[in-house]
């Protein structure tokens, strides 16, 4: 969760768009601590002026962001979204649309949703609660979110605002800070080993000689998570402790 919060460090005065429980907690934690200028929604059409607990209604509303404005805001670039991923590959291509052949999928999922517009217009990070070779695959079945190689192939209009700052899973934090823009292990969550990550990843990761641990939450952050933001412990439903 602290790793998710860190995604929005130094983001400034932009909209944090977290999808999923842990990213939502991360964004709220970031706003309550080191990123006070972030904009946050209630998950629907309101920009919240306070930072309520998960599931609680906002006490203060500071703005209005219905879907039509949200979709238009994406193109302004003043947003950093953290999406889920049913599949993600070493180039950062992401799939939430379907598994198998698109024409007749073996498993239809959500559809591409806003992944194409997100990835070409504003920073897009990913959150994977269960790191496995079924998610971290060599090739995704349908490119919903655009990765680095595909953006480069598509030309300057595609790369101009394209950026995947990080991928966060229950095992570690990953980025694309390599010469060929493929996925690299940035940090391991405490207690996780490099071998564990490699076994759970369906492609060859870049692993630096020295891999740091993801920083642990400090006392104030723990208090905010446990007492203020998620007293109902919804976070362990997404990532079993």
């Amino acid at each position, binding site marked *: 969760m602290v790793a998710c919060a860190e995604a929005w460090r130094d983001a400034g005065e932009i909209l944090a768009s977290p999808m999923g429980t842990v990213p939502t907690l991360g964004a709220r934690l970031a706003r309550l601590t080191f990123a006070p200028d972030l904009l946050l929604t209630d998950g*629907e*059409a*309101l920009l919240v002026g306070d930072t309520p607990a998960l599931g609680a209604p906002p006490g203060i509303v500071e703005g*209005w962001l*219905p*879907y*039509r404005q949200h*979709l*238009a805001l*994406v*193109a302004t670039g003043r947003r950093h979204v953290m999406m889920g991923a049913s599949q993600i590959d070493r180039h950062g291509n992401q799939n939430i*649309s*379907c598994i198998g052949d*698109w*024409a*007749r*999928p*073996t*498993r*239809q*999922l*959500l*559809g*591409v*949703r*806003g*992944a*194409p*517009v997100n*990835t*070409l*217009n504003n920073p897009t990070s990913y959150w994977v609660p269960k790191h496995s070779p079924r998610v971290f695959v060599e090739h995704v079945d*349908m*490119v*919903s*979110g*655009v990765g680095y190689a*595909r*953006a480069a*192939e*598509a*030309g*300057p*209009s*595609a790369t*101009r*605002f394209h950026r995947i700052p990080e991928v966060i899973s229950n095992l570690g934090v990953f980025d694309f800070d390599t010469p060929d823009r493929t996925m690299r292990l940035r940090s391991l969550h405490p207690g996780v080993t490099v071998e564990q990550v490699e076994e759970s990843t369906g492609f060859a990761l870049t692993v630096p000689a020295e891999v740091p641990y993801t920083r642990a939450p400090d006392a104030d952050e723990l208090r905010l998570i446990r007492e203020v933001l998620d007293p109902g412990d919804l976070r362990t439903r997404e990532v079993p402790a």
Partner: protein
Amino acid sequence: MSDKTMSAEEAVGRLRSGMTLGIGGWGSRRKPMALVRALLRTDVTDLTVVSYGGPDVGLLAAAGRIRKLVAAFATLDSIPLEPHFTAARQRGAFALEELDEAMFMWGLTAAAQRLPFLPVRAALGSDVMKVNPRLRTVTSPYDDGEEFVAVPALRLDAALVHLNRADSRGNAQYLGPDPYFDDLFCQAADTAYVSCEQIVDTADLLKDAAPQSLLVKRAFVTGVVETPGGAHFTSCAPDYDRDEPFQRAYAQAARDPETWRAFTDRFLSGDEQAYQAAVTAFHEERT
């Protein structure tokens, strides 16, 4: 002064097989479900459905009425996957034009503005380009020379939307936090049918609401249908929230043909009044 009031049956009676039909709302939110249920009672089929998909798509897919779906997703919101949509896709029941959410909005906007396309940055590099071979790109005529996707206009033969209030002339009002895209659907369509929780006098529309709540203008409306509970089981804030227990029952019933047949017999074999009565009975049984 034209009175456009009609019944749901009259509204869907004007639809024809093979039409391109836009359906308002979003996911499992303020969907014109009573109009969809009325449509299911006709033999209109072979539809091209344009929707931010929810159970509207699910019900029409389950009944085999969709020839082609134009959508960025289909979801029940609190239940991420729409079971009839996923099942229909997995058996190859209809063609899909899969677009990004924003492309969808600009496609409707292009249609409403009578433009052939609007340029967007979305979709470049994604498989949306691959699965929609009809998509073309357009190059900026200015010094930047950037290349964009030309989202084609999503022009509609007809649109179905559901709002909180309307007058008999077709001025329609949303009272919840999000207008979704219902005005765009109406503007992009040759004919548009607005169902609402309550028809009120024009003079009463602004009794408890601000003028910005007047979303749909009567020049874009063909028919007005008063159908209380007409978005059920989707949400219709502030009149009512999503009926989560009923939605769960819907999703469970969709899992196999036998339970779905039982659900259809119980809820979808009669008229709207019978549906609403069956829903009331469903809740009474649960308490």
